[in-house]
């Protein structure tokens, strides 16, 4: 077998090699090729997604930092800023679930620290194959343990996320991680900071080893095939204790204003951090690899340059501040080393043993990667999938059986097994944590709290990628609004298959359009995110799944509204309207065994009007509870409100609509609220003023859940089914 040329082994195409030759005016050496291979990888360069991402709205008066830096930043008033960002760590997790997920947390937390913000919350949207398969159970338990093992140890509460299960994730779990931090606005470390010639690059934290070499190019930018286990050395190993020390040391450096710049070392390691910060400063750099602390002495140049060893940060420091910086690091027990010096010009020049071993214009690595307009084509057979709509199926199921089947479906059932393995109380700010529509975290010293929610709608995306993305944004915003908070901005993680396939690029382009339209309608710009391609194996891709991480703000957290029915004698209202649309619903999947048809329609204006109603109702103290009505339909929203408040209900069903539509359709723009009788008039007036349709569905009270004459059950029975579903599947 002929040996593969080096550039191809490093993930570079022949054309890309040509572009490198013309930039350098010569053949690149082995080290330079490795640097290009990492920086021009799909993961780092966004070469397939860039032209589409430009369509997203990114600006608003409250957005302080948009896409392109370590994290987006939003002004939340009172001189405070919130930094937030989402990423994927799917490929490493598919190979080594514990470390893959753990280092995913580490990376996203360092992104937040790099903005000068203290990480105050994490959220983890996860997607796995069905738990009926042993390998999926291994991945699921490993990932959850890894998130807990790392996140719990660094003192950042894990306050939310979601877990979905679907067959296409069997070989390709999607592991997304979001972190949120807070900082005084005037202490943010953004690229606006002036970086001076003569400033020093100081590498802080762990030493550099052989782990994670080729993480971005080998793992994240290719599909996972049979021999995946051989890539295990490309997965990094996490040390959360070192991370905790790095967080505290870096925040102290920022607080004492000792830095000109701060960046984490993540994908593409030193090469990425050095080239990006140098390019941003519009300077050059002399990098001395002899100064990099190594775990073993005989690392090769390209290994030092692209190692993804964890828990390292790169600080840019004026020479006169160096002693102070090193003192802080030493006090936290961290190594620090001056590895480079910023110089005039734009060259990134790397030395080892006194010799220049690589010399590349920094901008060429960081900013001038290839950009592809890849071919787009709607997949064949798509119309047939849409036409086979479960809405028109003959339903013979028993309503009570259907209810229990949907409630115990792992997509719907309680995720307590997952979130009880996460510390969600540390830092003392968690007002509402896992299980709530949105997590609510107070901002210390104020009555303000931020609201956080993550949502992905893979099944809808499979049936209509435009709608799938738009629904994900709508549901994220709704989850924030039901608690009484104002949606502010989003970050995202785009989980897709191989972009070199035109069908996947079509899904991607459609999804971006759906996300862009929804974000405009809700005035929630995109402040950053991450694109994870190549989530496929054997030619079968995951469903196109943009996951939205939304940030909201509540001005006075004492007014927040929770989802549980708090007492008896309240009137239950459904805000919004239910349509005969069962396509992509949990009911269609679990009861009808059909994943086809059209997903529910979405009218963005109606959705926005519902958000206004929910926020104003909370501010006016008009509702006793409010809960998003989506996955599983009305029946699940009601059951969750009943279980959470430990209060049953009796419902009147409309006579002119089939029961399975009323109970199980997942129509958009709906919420279930409960209202004290003396506030009914005010609420109805508010809802009518915003032209939001509504219907009075019943009343709260008692231990039973009565669905008109159709069937009844008890809160206790529902809870047993809901809580035991996932643990039961795990014990086999």
């Amino acid at each position, binding site marked *: 077998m002929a040996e593969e040329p080096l550039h191809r082994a490093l993930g570079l195409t022949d054309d890309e090699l040509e572009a490198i030759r013309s930039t350098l005016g010569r053949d690149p050496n082995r080290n330079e090729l490795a640097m290009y291979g990492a920086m021009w990888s799909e993961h780092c360069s966004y070469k397939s997604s860039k032209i589409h991402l430009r369509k997203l709205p990114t600006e608003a008066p409250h957005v302080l930092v948009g896409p392109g830096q370590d994290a987006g930043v939003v002004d939340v008033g009172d001189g405070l800023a919130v930094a937030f960002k989402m990423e994927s760590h799917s490929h490493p997790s598919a190979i080594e679930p514990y470390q893959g997920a753990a280092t995913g947390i580490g990376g996203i937390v360092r992104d937040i620290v790099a903005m000068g913000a203290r990480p105050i919350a994490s959220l983890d949207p996860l997607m796995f194959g069905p738990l009926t398969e042993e390998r999926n159970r291994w991945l699921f338990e490993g990932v959850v*343990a890894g998130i*807990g*093992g790392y996140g*719990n*140890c*660094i*003192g950042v509460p894990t306050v939310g996320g979601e877990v979905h299960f679907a067959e296409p994730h069997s070989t390709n779990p999607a592991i997304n991680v979001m972190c949120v931090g807070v900082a005084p606005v005037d202490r943010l470390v953004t690229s606006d900071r002036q970086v001076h010639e003569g400033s020093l690059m100081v590498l802080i934290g762990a030493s550099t080893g052989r782990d994670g070499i080729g993480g971005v190019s080998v793992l994240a930018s290719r599909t996972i095939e049979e021999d995946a286990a051989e890539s295990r050395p490309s997965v990094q190993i996490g*040390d*959360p*204790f*070192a991370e*905790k*020390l790095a967080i505290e040391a870096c925040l102290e450096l920022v607080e004492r204003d000792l830095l000109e710049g701060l960046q984490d070392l993540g994908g593409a390691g030193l090469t990425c951090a050095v080239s990006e910060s140098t390019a941003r400063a519009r300077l050059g750099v002399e990098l001395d690899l002899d100064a990099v602390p190594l775990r073993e002495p005989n690392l090769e140049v390209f290994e030092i340059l692209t190692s993804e060893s964890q828990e390292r940060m790169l600080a840019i420091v004026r020479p006169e501040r160096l002693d102070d910086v090193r003192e802080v690091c030493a*006090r*936290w*027990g961290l190594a620090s080393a001056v590895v480079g010096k910023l110089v005039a010009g734009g060259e990134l020049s790397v030395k080892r043993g006194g010799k220049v071993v690589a010399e590349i214009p920094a901008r060429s690595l960081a900013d001038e990667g290839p950009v592809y307009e890849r071919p787009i084509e709607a997949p064949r057979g798509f119309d047939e999938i849409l036409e086979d709509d479960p809405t028109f199926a003959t339903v013979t199921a028993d309503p009570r059986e259907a209810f229990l089947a949907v409630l115990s479906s792992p997509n719907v059932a309680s995720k307590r097994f997952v*979130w*009880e*393995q*996460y*510390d*969600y*109380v*540390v*830092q*003392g*700010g*968690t*007002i509402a944590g896992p299980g709530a529509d949105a997590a609510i975290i*107070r901002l210390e010293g104020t009555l303000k709290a931020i609201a956080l929610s993550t949502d992905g709608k893979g099944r809808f995306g499979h049936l209509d990628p435009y709608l799938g993305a738009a629904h994900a944004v709508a549901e994220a915003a709704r989850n924030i609004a039901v608690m009484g908070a104002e949606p502010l901005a989003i970050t995202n993680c785009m989980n897709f298959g191989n972009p070199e396939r035109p069908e996947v690029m079509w899904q991607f382009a459609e999804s971006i359009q759906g996300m862009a339209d929804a974000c405009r309608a809700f005035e929630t710009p995109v402040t950053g995110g991450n694109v994870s391609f190549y989530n496929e194996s054997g030619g079968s891709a995951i469903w196109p799944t943009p996951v939205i991480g939304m940030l909201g703000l509540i001005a006075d*957290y*004492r007014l927040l509204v929770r989802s549980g029915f708090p007492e008896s004698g309240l009137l239950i209202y459904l805000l919004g309207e239910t349509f005969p649309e069962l396509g992509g619903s949990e009911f269609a999947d679990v009861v009808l065994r059909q994943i086809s048809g059209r997903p529910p329609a979405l009218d963005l204006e109606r959705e926005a009007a519902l958000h206004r109603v929910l926020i104003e109702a909370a501010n006016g103290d008009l509702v006793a509870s409010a809960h998003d009505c989506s996955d599983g339909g009305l029946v699940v929203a009601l059951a969750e409100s009943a279980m959470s408040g430990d209060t049953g209900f009796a419902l009147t069903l409309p006579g002119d609509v089939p029961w399975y539509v009323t109970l199980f359709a997942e129509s958009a723009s709906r919420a279930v609220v409960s209202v004290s009788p003396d506030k009914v008039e005010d609420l109805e007036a508010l809802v009518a003023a915003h032209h939001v349709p509504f219907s009075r569905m019943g009343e709260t009270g008692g231990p039973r859940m009565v669905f008109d004459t159709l069937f009844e059950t008890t809160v206790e029975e529902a809870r047993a089914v809901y809580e035991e579903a996932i643990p039961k599947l795990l014990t086999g």
Partner: protein
Amino acid sequence: MSERRPRVGVVTFPGSLDDRDALRAIAFMGGEGVPLWHAEHDLKGVDAVLLPGGFSYGDYLRTGAIARFAAIMGEVRDFAEAGAPVVGVCNGFQILCEAGLLPGALIRNRTLRFICRSVDVRIETSLSPLTEGLVPGEVLRIPVKHGEGQFVASRGDLEQIEGEGLVAFRYCAPDGTVDDEFNVNGSANSIAGVRNARGNVVGLMPHPEHAVDPDVGPTGGQPLLASLLSRALMRV
């Protein structure tokens, strides 16, 4: 409240996580929280010492096994031996056990999984800095969050702990019944916390500092920290 606010020192080890939360909770309850640093031989004249939760030194080797050699632990030991109040919460409890200031040890939870949950604990003694003036049998709701909280002791030690009334807290049902169903981590005899014989050192796995502010959780920690603050003031 007397004219002087009791000063409670909270030690930060590398990897401590709930240190700021403990300081905040002490202030919330009307005391003065004093940050103490592991590498200093200085308790800053505090009236009581609290070793907070977290993963000191990454919990490497064994939970609390490295922290007990920290510089400040000499002072903490002297402080305890002088009869002053010392409290260990979660990782702090593990450190006190490793340091030999409390009997028993803490190993991985029965499920082998980390668990974060609000639990009910029953007060078993009035003779500890956290429970002075409280009535045994009282049930408090407090969160636990730990991977290694299963209390164990040799048969002899366990007999002594029980015989001398050194159990400070047990996991229980909301009505106070002790039953294995509510034994969140599989601890011997459902033990959630123990004290020393003298009654001035106490450790527990539940986090009272996360149970004082009703905005962010249950309030079962309030009487415990109130007891600590009044005990701190009484110190000679």
